[in-house]
């Protein structure tokens, strides 16, 4: 079970969180024209990297905030966590 540092609550067990996918995907702006290709990429196309991956988790049984987690998908090592408004480099 992973140990995830919520930027609001501190270190918490994985079972308090739910996974939310790739955090680097950006939704096309609302009310703006978007090409079919860009839209399909946003909805369907995801990378499945082995190694560092910035992903979203929601602290569902805690503060209910969505957060960013940079995790190694092969080793589960967590390098960094951040608020969604913050950048992970």
């Amino acid at each position: 079970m992973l140990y995830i540092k919520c930027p609001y609550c501190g270190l918490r067990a994985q079972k308090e969180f739910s996974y939310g996918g790739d955090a680097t995907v950006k939704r096309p702006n609302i009310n703006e024209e978007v090409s079919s290709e860009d839209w399909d990429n946003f909805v369907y196309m995801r990378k499945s990297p082995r190694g560092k991956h910035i992903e979203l988790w929601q602290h569902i049984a805690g503060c209910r905030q969505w957060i960013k987690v940079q995790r190694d998908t092969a080793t589960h090592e967590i390098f960094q966590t951040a608020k969604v408004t913050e950048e992970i480099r």
Partner: protein
Amino acid sequence: MSQPFRLNKEGLINRNKKISFIFNGKKLFGYEGDTIASALIANGIHLVGRSFKYHRPRGFFGAGVEEPNAKLQVEFNGHSEPNVNATEMELVEGLSATSQNCWPSVNFDIGAINNFLKMFFPAGFYYKTFMWPKSFWYKIYEPFIRKAAGLGVASIEKDKERYEHKFEYCDLLVTGSGPSGLASAYAAAKNGAKVILAEDKPRFGGTLLTDDVSIDNLSGKDWAEKIISELKSMPNVTVKNRSQVFGYYDHNMLVMFERVSDHLEKKSKFTPRQRLWYIRAKETILSTGSIERPIVFGNNDTPGIFLSAAAKEYMKVYGVLVGKKPLIFTNNDSAYETALEFKKNNVEPIILDTREEHSSELIDEAKSKGIDIRFSHGVIVANGYKKVKSAKIGKLNKDKNSFEKIETVDCDCICVSGFWTPSVHLASQSGNKLKYEEKIDAFIPNKKKQHETSVGAANGSFTLEESLKNGFENGSNLSAKITDTKTEIAIPNVNEKKYGAHDKFWCMPLPKNENPKRFVDFQNDVSVSDIEIALREGYRSIEHVKRYTTLGMATDQGRTSNLNGLQLVSNIENKIVPEVGHTTFRPPFTPITIGTIVGREVGMEYMPTRKTPMHEWHEKNNAVFVDAGAWKRPRYYKQGNETLFEASKREAKNVRENVGICDVTTLGKIDIKGPDAAEFLNRVYTNAWMKLPIGKARYGLMLREDGIVMDDGTTTRISENHYHMTTTTAQAANVLSHLEYYLQIVWPELNVNVVSTTEQWAGAAIAGPKSRDMLSKLYPDLDVSNDALPFMGYKEADFFGVPSRIFRISFSGELAYEINVKSDHGMFMWEKMMELGKEFGNQPYGTEALSTLRIEMGHVAGPELDGRTIPSDVSLNGLVSKKKDFIGKNSLGREAFNVESRQKIVGLIPIDRKSSIPEGSHIVQDQNAKLPNPKLGHVSSSCWSVENNNPFSLAIMKDGKNMIGKKFFAVSPLKNKSIEVEVISSHYVDPEGKRVRS
């Protein structure tokens, strides 16, 4: 009754307390502090089981967790448990143990015929034999293999015991209370760290209990006691015995299995049997020690053959002799301690040492005590079937591949030592990349991935002095980094015997023309010849050899067999062990009970139960409940001998004719506030929300980004910047997360807050043509006319002194209202409604009637919104705005969503107007067509239409709207039914929706 193999005074058992127990029907006794194993050995019993494959007689081999053979079926405290390790299970009064894998008895086992047919059961036998004829598999082979599989019998009774889970956090977890573990825990505790010290055995001290050493002029045992009592007195230390740390998982989480009360004769009601600890440790010290490995020789599995350290432990801890004529077979000095212990107890051992004559402190001491030592000697084969009677021993030549002299000596036990293997299981589980240490012929931890440090024998340091130093230093350094405190501790003076070098010898050769079985893995019956076959047949990877031969599998996890197996493979392959590598060590290190894994999450505690504030009323009024997620909802209210079908028909009919009330508390409710709330709803829902007036509700549809319908419900504008959203019961949690996702991540610029208020409001729906009359009774001072409170209207009003919310919304398709009050007043509201509704014929209705009502109206719910439908599939395209953008809008343009023959919702009625159509039925053109019969759609919801008094179903069907009027078959292979149906509109009742507006 005397115990022929019990010493007069040695040991740590309590001789003042006799404990009686039963073994294979025979009443025996032991003492408090005995294990089943030590008590049986004291009684001279060695034959305890039959081996897995060949049903060979097996006895005890070890004295603890390393035991591969002595697994018993044990009954105590009213339950029966298979595969209990006799060397670990403590004796309790009334315990009854029986041998496994034998019939009719362990003494005479018919299955032992396999042993004489062993040439037919080599490695891979099952893979090769049961391939043909194919038709034999189900009826003959599979039942036969099933019967032969496994050892004990799992109980089919409900487990009445209590099991618990515990979550714990600490600075330092120490796994094992041998010298290095005690030293680490002590040093860390002195630095103020929060320490957990876990010991698998009942007694703390590990090898200190059995080794002839002194620390600061105390015996090992006394020193351990002193340290333990000091640790126990410290508030920052938790000391646990009977607790096995069996798994090392991600981010330094370790799992520990505590046997809380299996050793207790009586316990209080709420004492759990076993407890599972999830321990998150900042640092972990792995002081798991080492396990002695055997030397492989002929018939080395015969009862009476022990690991030499186990024999010593039986004497020193339990006061039990494993035999009175011991042969000690060793390649190193540690077995000499066993020999000296025998000698001390007036038993004359013979030592067979594979090394050439030389001297060391221990050898000299043995010599001076007059012990018979034979260098360059080893056991070739053990004689005796159910117990060792003698051994053929041989003098090895210089190359140790043949014999200079062979003779037979009498003996009643053989104590074997092939040097020591560090227990690296936890380190390896943590991700540590092990390295092969030539000096000790074994793997030790090397490159760590997590916060773990192996110390003492687990790290390949086999002297007490090193272990203590190692322990104190690591315990101190690791904890100092956490606590920022460093207390100097003087490393104690140690007195121990110096060991000479061991012999790199691990398997006895066989003389010509002799071919006894030489076992490598006792538990899985894997012998030297099995490994040879696997390699001959081309298996090269050690992982493949493991799977083909079963070497090191199952509960044993290769504790005593691993390295000998690797040595064998490397010898045959002419490789060195590090090139062969090792197989993966998997948790759990030792078997744990399923009960412990499950913990308290059984029966009613499997998941939380959510009850509405009116639950008690439903119970009192014969409600039959149905699970809706964690919620309990009344499915119907049973009157007399009514069936579900009759009751739901009566309830639904009453709503159509009079008025009914339904507990709708479980619907998801989300409070939405903020100046941008309307804009947010406008983006979340497919329809327009910018112009909803205050005091009005609107039905809304939300999609996922891929265009699929996510949920539906009504949202009401309570005030300027305040909305009340409802969701379906099932999607409440998902919708909230969904809204939070968009507010926090996608559109953080929107000033909106959302919060779940599902639990805060109790809700009741009042539905039926007489609902307005009833409402006026409930609100005598309120104008409830169609003009004052029209369809989709909203009012806040006083309900007999309680603030309430009235929504004029309808799911049943009738004139209907929904009243919400604070949860605390839910019961008051409900009872008042029942009381004042009487004159209108009001009856409560459950989810079954609710479904009937919505199905015949053609209202969609979960079965239609099944994660595959878009709005136009379910006739909701009227709610999709063309003018504005919203979540999922761009996906609706996808080609596949817009083809003419796209699936659509339709209604179905059986041609005979009588046969109910099973939900899930497939719609086909020709019921007799050859399979696979092309599927045109499926039945999503079915009911008995109370309006038309015949069955009616909703279906999602290809090109549905153009199929109206046509006939098909609804086939359900599951129910073995095929019903001819006609396609009609999905709006079976009141298609214009007049009633809701009346």
